């Protein structure tokens, strides 16, 4: 076991998958000699060459569209979108094409494609380098949506995503790229299955659901409130689509209370679906309103620090929400 950063986990995953399967290739802006603007692909161009690590034109639509074409041929493209905020030009290709290909061809054509995109705020990136936009994609049947919260899962889930025969939107908490470190087994073939959520801290008083960077803060908040006698159960959702309903329901059946935390805007965010699921299927188990702590309903995270802090959920805000719900 060695301790690595989250981004190093991603890099290792791509390196191993490129080595394992010659159908795998990487395509995106600046992924080549530059190694990506966050250096996720650093060294891979030198190791695998310009045919396997391709600097694309500055055009997200075609990064994904070309990826889909290559996937139809049977290859396993990993498309990098430089910031999640810049994925919208590719929205049509993702939603109309990648997501619907298997269904619309009655299974004749499939799109084994991974779209990696760094997401999330708190990094001084302003409106267009801070967005969380998972909810656009969790509404799209045919996609899988994955968000790792630590180096182990980043590596294992990305390797699983590359091998998944479906299109996978793989959102990476960029604030945690170097901040979040963790143990990852050396050698072997680390795979974390797409689908199951992870119980990351057991507790009896209430359930807190999160993913990505927010999961990191939720664990910190849980630690703080534990000192006050509140036992929060923390679930790292990890795979947002398909939803791990069983894990969510069984936790709330136990605790009777649920808090969902995400950075993405509140209205119509992923938390709404979890709340709806609970209010339907766990109705008789709920001892309190289902609460959401989310990015406020303004367009995105502002640049100036006081305004950025106002926007972002953080450990203190989460601890406060936990206390309030625990006291209900």
């Amino acid at each position: 076991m060695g301790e690595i950063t989250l981004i190093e986990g991603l890099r290792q995953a791509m390196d191993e998958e490129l080595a394992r399967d010659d159908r795998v290739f990487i395509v995106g802006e600046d992924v080549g000699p530059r190694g990506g603007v966050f250096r996720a692909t650093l060294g891979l161009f030198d190791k695998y060459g310009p045919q396997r690590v391709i600097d694309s034109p500055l055009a997200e639509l075609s990064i994904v569209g070309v990826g889909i074409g290559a996937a139809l041929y049977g290859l396993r493209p990993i498309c990098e979108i430089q910031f999640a905020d810049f994925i919208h030009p590719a929205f049509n290709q993702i939603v109309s094409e990648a997501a619907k290909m298997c269904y619309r061809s009655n299974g004749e054509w499939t799109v084994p494609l991974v779209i990696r995109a760094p997401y999330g705020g708190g990094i001084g990136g302003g409106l267009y380098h801070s967005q969380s936009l998972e909810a656009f994609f969790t509404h799209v049947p045919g996609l899988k949506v994955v968000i790792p919260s630590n180096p182990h899962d980043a590596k294992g889930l990305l390797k699983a995503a590359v091998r998944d025969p479906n299109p996978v939107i793989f959102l990476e908490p960029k604030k945690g790229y170097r901040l979040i470190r963790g143990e990852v087994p050396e050698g072997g073939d680390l795979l974390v299955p797409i689908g199951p959520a992870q119980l990351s801290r057991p507790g009896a008083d209430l359930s807190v659901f999160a993913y990505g960077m927010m999961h990191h803060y939720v664990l910190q908040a849980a630690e703080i409130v534990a000192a006050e006698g509140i036992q929060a159960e923390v679930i790292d959702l990890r795979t947002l689509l398909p939803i791990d309903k069983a894990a969510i329901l069984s936790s709330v059946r136990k605790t009777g209370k649920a808090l969902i935390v995400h950075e993405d805007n509140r209205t119509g965010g992923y938390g709404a679906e979890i709340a709806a699921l609970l209010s339907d299927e766990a109705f008789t188990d709920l001892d309190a309103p289902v609460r959401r702590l989310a990015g406020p309903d303004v367009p995105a995270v502002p640049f100036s620090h006081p305004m950025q802090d106002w926007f972002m959920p953080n450990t203190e805000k989460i601890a406060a929400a936990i206390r309030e719900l625990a006291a209900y």
Partner: protein
Amino acid sequence: MPLPPPPLLDLYRLMLLARRLDERAWVLHRQGKIAFHISGIGQEAAQVGAAFALQRGKDWFAPYYRDLALMLALGLTPLEFVLGLMGKQGEPSSGARQMPSHWSLRRANVVSHSSPVATQAPHAAGLGLAIRLRGGDAVVLTTIGEGSTSQGEWYEAVNWAATHKLPVIFLVENNVYAISVRQNQQMAVEHVAEKAAGLGLPGVIVDGLDAVASYRAVGEAAERARRGEGPTVIEAKVARMTPHSSDDDDRSYRPRDEVEAMKARDPLALFRQRLLAEKVLSEAQDAGLQEEVKGVIEAAVAEAEAAPYPPAEDAAYPVYVEDVRRG
């Protein structure tokens, strides 16, 4: 490898089959037996020329909805087409999930396309990239209407192919209209082929009413691509001899004399006259072909009418590849 001489009779037979089948679809629509038809009448010559210039079974295709003649040339059966028209079980492109003429045929390397126009163009570039990465000298043909080249998707796809010198042929079937919108409201260039100059690849104009001209142009572009010299844009000047679709009525926007002039240059009639004049085809042979085609189509319609609809619950699958196995 020089292009072999065009297989004139094969071209003719396919054009004839496509035309009669297409006409039959309009009749089925008038009879209320199908809900929708989008026609390829007037564009058959360009399509069959393209199909025969390529290596079926080896090359790849990302077509668009007017490509009935292309699809028949690639091996789609009339029955399969009519099953699609009727939304019946066994329809091969989508299991009757998509509207008619939304092609896909795995056995012929025809990838699935959707309704949003131009989305197939980047797929073609991606197929070209995959061929490049995996080796081999297959080429990709993708087709599109002239109006749809206004989409940024088409531009980005051609730019990719040109920049990476990918083995792709971008065939634009220019019938001058995008539903009601004439080409001069779509673009400031006179010929779509001019767009190629701005993207650094050759742009070729061809008479799309002439199957042999199309055969030659596509054949040459394919040779270039196989030699590693990159993609080509081919603009085939074709004719939309019907309204846009069975939902359209073109009288509000299309001058009648234009329609008449176009009908006088029907590519099927022109080709027939030429083959008769060149004695490639005799009147008797032609009569036989007409009979044969008619029989094939009537059999297909009868069989499709008798075929069942897919069970409702089939609609639940396959959202994910896992469901394909399950389903």
